[in-house]
């Protein structure tokens, strides 16, 4: 007999780049089917297609032998699918109950009056059943992240759909909350619901899943019953071929300590964070989404203030009120949100490159922008990183991701900096550009700069970094030297289990 859900040859492109290539596998009714893969493997894209947020460019989805065209959210709901998305889709100005029942509100039959009491009651029931201690009439904006996550789950359950997709539902949950979720999942399975479960946390997968499907950069790898697998096996499937030789690239790490961080603390974001950065060292930062690593680095850079802790730059204590201070002290920062926080889309390549450096004081007439020096600066960076653009006045938004990223790097490199904080320096750029960025990093390290780089993709981290620290739930759960590097360890730390 044919299986409950058949996914056949699903293809999805973004701007000519394949996010999903010809994905096909089956999902059995009443099973918990885990979908695994590294960041950018295409799991979330696939789920968004099932949820009707994206439309597949090709391929078919068959549910109970009926081929379904899922063109929008409502179609997907009609197919009995409900999705818990990775990023929240709660309306902060509405109450918990309203959010839970936003798409199917219990209403009196005449005029769309909402039956508040009934709704709140249902919501309360549901929340109690999930053992979530949240007032259904509380406003979502007043909830903590994990509470929000649980509400998201309640929301998707409320539609009592047959197929429930959970995209990293536990990313923001602590141990016992995860336990709760496991119970819920098991209970749902008993009710004969089908669950697609996405998670990085191997433990959960082994506790819950019946079957595992692994994707790797947009391609289908394999589907196996959980029985036939162990952690290492799965990680192998996820990682694929071992990483190439350049792993033993020369390290330029010195003994000179550039940056020291002691017990950095910001209430319910991160706590007791301490680490050192040496000159010429590339320090990798690993961790799962929502683990607080970006926040720590942003706080050090002065984007917002931490509650307590000390930061030492070359032995002198510093505390940056604003990025301006940080830059003045020779620290620079590369955002992971290139589109919204990086480029100035309507401005030229040149202007984007010199955004920071035009402020440099040593110029006479500090307020005057000298076109010549600007051109020179751009040229300098172009030669240094071989940025490709039609002409210096071209809008940066017309450049490819890789070149945009180079411009953003150049923006910071025009000043002689000691420390470079990078979030996801290779996010959303093609393979060739990635390689260039890698060599650029070691180039900088060679020149004695200290680099802190956040990588979600462990291959990259292992390939590029001299040393790594791993975050989980806002704490540093482990540190590894290059010799100790291996994925299992990092994933273990990232999943919050200390040595």
């Amino acid at each position, binding site marked *: 007999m044919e299986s409950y859900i058949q996914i056949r040859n699903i293809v999805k492109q973004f701007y000519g780049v394949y996010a999903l290539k010809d994905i096909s596998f089956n999902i059995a009714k009443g099973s918990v089917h885990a979908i695994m893969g590294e960041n950018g493997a295409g799991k979330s894209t696939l789920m968004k297609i099932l949820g009707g947020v994206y439309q597949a460019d090709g391929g078919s989805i068959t549910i109970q032998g009926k081929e379904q065209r899922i063109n929008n*959210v409502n179609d997907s709901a009609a197919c009995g699918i409900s999705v818990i*998305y990775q990023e*929240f*889709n709660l*309306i902060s*100005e509405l109450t918990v109950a309203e959010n839970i029942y936003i*798409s199917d509100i219990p209403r009196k039959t005449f005029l*769309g*009056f909402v039956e508040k009491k009934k709704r709140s009651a249902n919501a309360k029931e549901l929340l109690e059943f999930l053992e979530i201690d949240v007032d259904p009439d509380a406003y979502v904006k007043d909830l903590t992240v994990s509470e929000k996550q649980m509400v998201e789950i309640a929301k998707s359950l409320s539609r009592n759909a047959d197929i429930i997709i959970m995209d990293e539902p536990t990313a923001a949950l602590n141990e016992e909350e995860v336990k709760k979720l496991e119970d819920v999942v098991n209970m749902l399975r008993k009710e004969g619901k089908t669950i697609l479960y996405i998670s990085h946390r191997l433990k959960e997968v082994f506790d819950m899943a019946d079957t595992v499907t692994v994707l790797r950069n947009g391609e289908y790898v394999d589907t196996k019953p959980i029985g036939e697998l162990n952690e290492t096996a799965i990680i192998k499937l996820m990682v694929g071929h071992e990483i190439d030789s350049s792993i033993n690239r020369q390290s330029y790490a010195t003994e000179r300590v550039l940056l020291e961080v002691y017990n950095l603390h910001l209430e319910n974001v991160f706590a007791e964070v301490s680490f050192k950065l040496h000159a010429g060292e590339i320090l990798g930062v690993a961790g799962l989404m929502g683990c607080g690593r970006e926040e720590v680095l942003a706080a050090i850079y002065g984007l917002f203030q931490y509650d307590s802790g000390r930061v030492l730059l070359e032995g002198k204590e510093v505390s940056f009120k604003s990025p301006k201070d940080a830059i003045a002290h020779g620290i620079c920062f590369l955002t992971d949100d290139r589109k919204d926080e990086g480029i100035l889309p309507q401005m030229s390549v040149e202007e984007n490159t010199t955004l920071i450096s035009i402020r440099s004081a040593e110029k006479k007439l500090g307020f005057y922008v000298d076109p010549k020096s600007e051109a020179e600066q751009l040229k300098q960076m172009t030669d240094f990183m071989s940025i490709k653009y039609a002409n210096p006045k071209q809008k940066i938004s017309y450049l490819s991701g890789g070149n945009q990223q180079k411009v953003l790097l150049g923006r910071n490199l025009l000043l002689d900096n000691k420390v470079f904080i990078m979030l996801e320096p290779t996010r959303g750029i093609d393979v060739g550009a990635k390689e260039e960025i890698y060599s650029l990093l070691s180039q900088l390290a060679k020149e004695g700069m200290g680099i802190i780089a956040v990588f979600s993709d462990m291959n990259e981290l292992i390939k590029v970094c001299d040393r790594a620290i791993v975050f989980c739930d806002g704490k540093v759960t482990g540190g590894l030297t290059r010799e100790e590097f291996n994925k299992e360890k990092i994933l273990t730390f990232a999943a919050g289990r200390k040595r």
Partner: protein
Amino acid sequence: MKKFILKHSDNLSLGAVIIMLFIGFSIMQPNMMTAFNIKNILVQVSLTAIAAAGMTFAYTAGVFDMSIGSILALVSVVVAKTATTYGFFIALAAAVVIAVMVGVVNGLIVTKLGIQAFAATLVTMILIRGIAVLIANGADIPLYSMEGIKFISSGTIAGIPFPIILTVLVYIFSYILYYTTVFGMKLRSVGSNADASKISGIKTNRMVIAAFVLTAVTAVLSSLIKTAQVMFGKSTIGEDFALDVMTTVILGGTLVTGGKGNLTGTLIASILIAVIKNGLNINNVNSYYQQLIIGIILIFALIVNGIKTMKNERQIRREG
């Protein structure tokens, strides 16, 4: 009790201001306190309060409407022209139809052309005013023959002037619509987070258009009251109406970024403004002081808000 105070602190503080002002004015001019005057104030309240209710919905959906002043003029002209020949109810129907059309046009310009509410309604504001002037053709259109219309402005039911009753009705309707219907909930969710609403399967564009329509329709009611008061249609009335109404709504504590309206606040704020105008008038104070005081109160209220938001900011950042 304490919870209640905290929950409604904004409204309560506004209310307190009203009471203080009222007492102050009464000391200066005893006639302030008479039942007659209070009735007057409430009638004057109704003019802005009704349109402000609609505007609250617009703000909730994350937009606003500058064109209602012109709608006021157009409706008063059209009603005056049609009522005498075709009778009141045809005129009323015509007015409503116009309002709905304007609302839809505004909505379409905003949603389909992707032009911001400010720009879009600015254009319609100028155009509609132009049409009103065209129709009126430089004359005031008298309505003396239609004594019936007078009821709208000065008729009483059980001793209560009709405008006040109308206001109450409008607000009861608004409350129901805003807090108890699916529509109200979807409106709030669209204003609060359009993308998430889309993913939850809400038709966001429709909600925005609906908000504009509501605003325009309430403007019609205000216009009818004004027209009935003076008993002729004039194409020049309501030049500052839109700004007054928006001021009222913002004063009332509605979130300008959308998602959270405060109907109670709107009502209280319109009372506040009416009390200020009336109080200064009966103390024979020049009308410019009204503008100044309203302006200052507005800015002050906003600064207080600004400080609040700044306090929240860290919280928001932590949530990532």
